[in-house]
């Protein structure tokens, strides 16, 4: 099935992908080719912020797949995002080499500080980019597989599952805060120098990662669209609406849930891996339950079960967050809390739902 064919019925998706491509090209051109003095120049800072939003959008896409389509409200997707981020962070940590404060070629600074003598076994291999990239996919994927297998097999559903996923990310947060875990404890991983030999401070590198984020968001969207448009997508929707009925027509519901959960976790991991080189740090606070809840609200604001709604919500809410925390930081939590209440009460289908209703109203 070609992409054109796939998107034939998804007009909004086509528009979104076009806009995304246009946005990526324009932003990078305005940054690299337009002189800094010009009014049209886009600063590297802005490029990085935009790249960050794209990562959030990919993460929101992952949440929408499990929540919007399969009805699994995961309050622990931040964990998969953070694990992907840590995997990439570990690679960049190893790349620092002798340029660290302690000048130790083998050990990252925090390990020297803890008086460790050798690299823990789970850090081996992370000096290779290909290995780290593989881990970006494997670690969140395997965790989701193990966790999902345990949870779905025992038919834990609904709010129970949500609470358990929250406990999962909470446990990870507690664990990663410990220095003995060997992931930098409280401070996490930071002070990255370069990636694949490219200096992370250079405009070119930044723009490249921004473009990669756009590319992966686009690819993530297309793959997700393929999944939800396939017969599997319909099975997953059926599971969401009437789980036991789906069993009685012969589908092993657990397998489908597990598959979509793992796929979503891998997408979240990729988002995390692209996010970390742009913000330059990954620490245990990414595991905090609040983070995972926040990204659920992105999807709710945009409109779940549509894919593009999740992207829209992620970008809008984060833009609002940037603005609010800049001007009135204490108001942000009021606004975020209010958003949770308002969206669930007044626009259960999010902005996409509102737009749909307006259009239907116009037709009438």
């Amino acid at each position, binding site marked *: 099935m070609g992409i054109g064919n796939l998107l034939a019925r998804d007009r909004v998706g086509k528009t979104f992908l076009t806009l995304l491509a246009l946005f990526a090209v324009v932003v990078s051109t305005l940054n690299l080719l337009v002189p800094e003095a010009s009014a049209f120049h886009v600063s590297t800072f802005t490029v990085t912020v935009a790249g960050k939003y794209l990562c959030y959008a990919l993460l929101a896409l992952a949440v929408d797949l499990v929540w919007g389509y399969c009805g699994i409200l995961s309050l622990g997707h931040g964990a998969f995002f953070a694990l992907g981020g840590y995997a990439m962070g570990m690679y960049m940590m190893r790349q620092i080499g002798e340029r660290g404060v302690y000048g130790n070629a083998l050990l990252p600074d925090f390990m020297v500080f803890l008086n460790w003598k050798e690299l823990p076994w789970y850090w081996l291999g992370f000096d290779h980019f290909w290995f780290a990239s593989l881990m970006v996919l494997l670690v969140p994927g395997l965790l989701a597989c193990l966790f999902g297998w345990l949870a779905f097999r025992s038919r*834990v559903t609904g709010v129970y599952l949500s609470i358990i996923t929250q406990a999962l990310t909470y446990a990870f947060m507690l664990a990663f805060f410990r220095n003995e875990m060997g992931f930098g404890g409280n401070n996490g991983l930071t002070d990255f120098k370069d990636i694949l030999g490219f200096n992370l401070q250079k405009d070119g590198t930044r723009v490249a990662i921004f473009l990669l984020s756009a590319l992966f968001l686009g690819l993530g969207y297309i793959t997700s669209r393929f999944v939800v448009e396939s017969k599997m997508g319909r099975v997953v929707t059926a599971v969401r609406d009437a789980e036991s009925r789906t069993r009685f027509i012969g589908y092993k519901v657990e397998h489908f849930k597990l598959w979509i959960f793992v796929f979503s976790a891998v997408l979240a991991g990729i988002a995390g891996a692209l996010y970390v080189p742009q913000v330059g740090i990954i620490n245990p606070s990414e595991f905090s339950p609040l983070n995972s809840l926040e990204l659920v609200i992105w999807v709710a604001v945009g409109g779940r079960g549509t894919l593009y709604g999740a992207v829209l919500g992620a970008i809008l809410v984060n833009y609002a967050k940037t603005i609010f925390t800049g001007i009135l930081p204490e108001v942000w939590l009021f606004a975020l809390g209010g958003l949770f209440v308002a969206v669930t009460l007044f626009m259960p289908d999010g902005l996409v739902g509102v737009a749909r209703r307006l259009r239907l109203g116009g037709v009438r």
Partner: protein
Amino acid sequence: MSKRNNNPMLPCWEKPLLLLASGLWVLALLLAGLAPARADALADALNPLPTVAMADMEQAIGKLAQVQDPRVGGVLKALLEARLFYVKESKRVVFADPKDDGFKLTDALTGEALGEVGRFDVKKIPITNALRTVLNSAIAKLELTAPDAKQRLKAVESIIQNPNPEALALLTKQVGQEPDNTVREAIQVALSLADLSGSDKTLRVQAIHALEGNLNQEVRNRLTALQEKTETGDFIEPDSDIRNLAAVALKKIQLKLEMNRLGEMLFFGLSLGAVLVLAAIGLAITFGVMGVINMAHGELMMIGAYTTYVVQLLMPNAIDYSLFVAIPAAFVITALVGIGIERGIIRFLYGRPLETLLATFGLSLVLQQLVRSIFSPLNRSVSTPSWMSGSLEINSALSLTLNRFYIILFSLLVFWGLLMILKKTRLGLEVRAVAQNRAMAKAMGIRTDWVDAMTFGLGSGIAGVAGVALSQLTNVGPNLGQAYIVDSFMVVVFGGVGNLWGTLVGGLTLGVADKILEPYVGTVLAKILMLIFIILFIQKRPRGLFPQKGRAAEG
């Protein structure tokens, strides 16, 4: 304050001592007023001291010891410690404490501060070694016959620490007459220890047997000392029988200590469990009965804790009674907030549990920020009433803090109260009816929306009460609720939804398990292990410890 801490340098000791001293002083004054003859007796015995001849000193001391006066002990001790002086000019007997180059004087009779004098203005009342023996036994006798059992116990303990033959001789006499069990036991320990230091093997063996299982620190030290070696590698104690016996006795003591430690752990675990039960039980009602996940439950607890804070601000002079005001106040306030939440948000979301979860989570953010704006983001301290501070001493190795003890009691009380409300009241009946079959209850004329609001109010009110209890254990701050929300959900999930007994057993089990794990793996890892355990547990029992069964559970 426990008796283990007997270092007089600690500032916390100074206050009670001063209080004790001044109390005695007032008592003495009273006695002086009532019976001038007695006070005079002390003066009669004391005043001759500067002039009495060395040979007559023993007699003088004997006379002094005979005087029935609370100040006598202090004077005798001062004499023993070489603090009893007299002023050269006036022959006035004084307590003298070295200060700079001279002494600071206190009148031995009146306790009046006499200021500082030079080194040469005063003279020490001298004693000999023989006199020291006389003094020791006089002081011991005085203290060991004190009317207050606590004082006697203290005297015996100080003899255990610094034994002298005179005191021990007295103890031997005293042991048969001592009416108080604790004091008698202490005397026996002192005597056995003395036997142990002796040379008679039969007595030593007997002593070791007598000391088996005794938790006194000194006993442990002495038995341990019997196992030690000199630098050359020889045992200090030459008799191997004694050594072996002592080793056995020590092992028994250690076992007993271990048991006590276990008891303490159990107690800590139960108190943590009680807090978890308090936190989870309100949740169990809203989650179990109504099927509503209330993520703002922790924030309701926070409101309860802040209510305590405000109540204490309003009645700063009656902190001891503040909790009795705070508990009903917190219940009413949080119940009203809860009813507001139910009427304002949750009732529009029935049948959509995931949305309820999100909306109430949003609410929890708003409530947190609200508290930050009103009370500042910093923690507030809430005072503990005096009747809740202190500890309950079980034996010399185990003491239980009263506040934790009360919280266990309180949580059981709340649990029982809730059970009674559900079982015995009309509201309880309606709540159970709605929980079992909403449509049927409605058809029978039960106002389900009213029941929903009341149920939610009840659950929220209990959260507020739990907050009052928490304010006695931890800091009161905007994040108070968050710290407990994951844990309390775990309790509900573990115990089984819709079953209060499950919540009780689940909470206590998790609390105890947590405290048992903690010493081995640390706080954080213990918590992680508990979470993993629960995730694995629901593999086996997806509906918790006490699942609902039958058609109602199919849902």
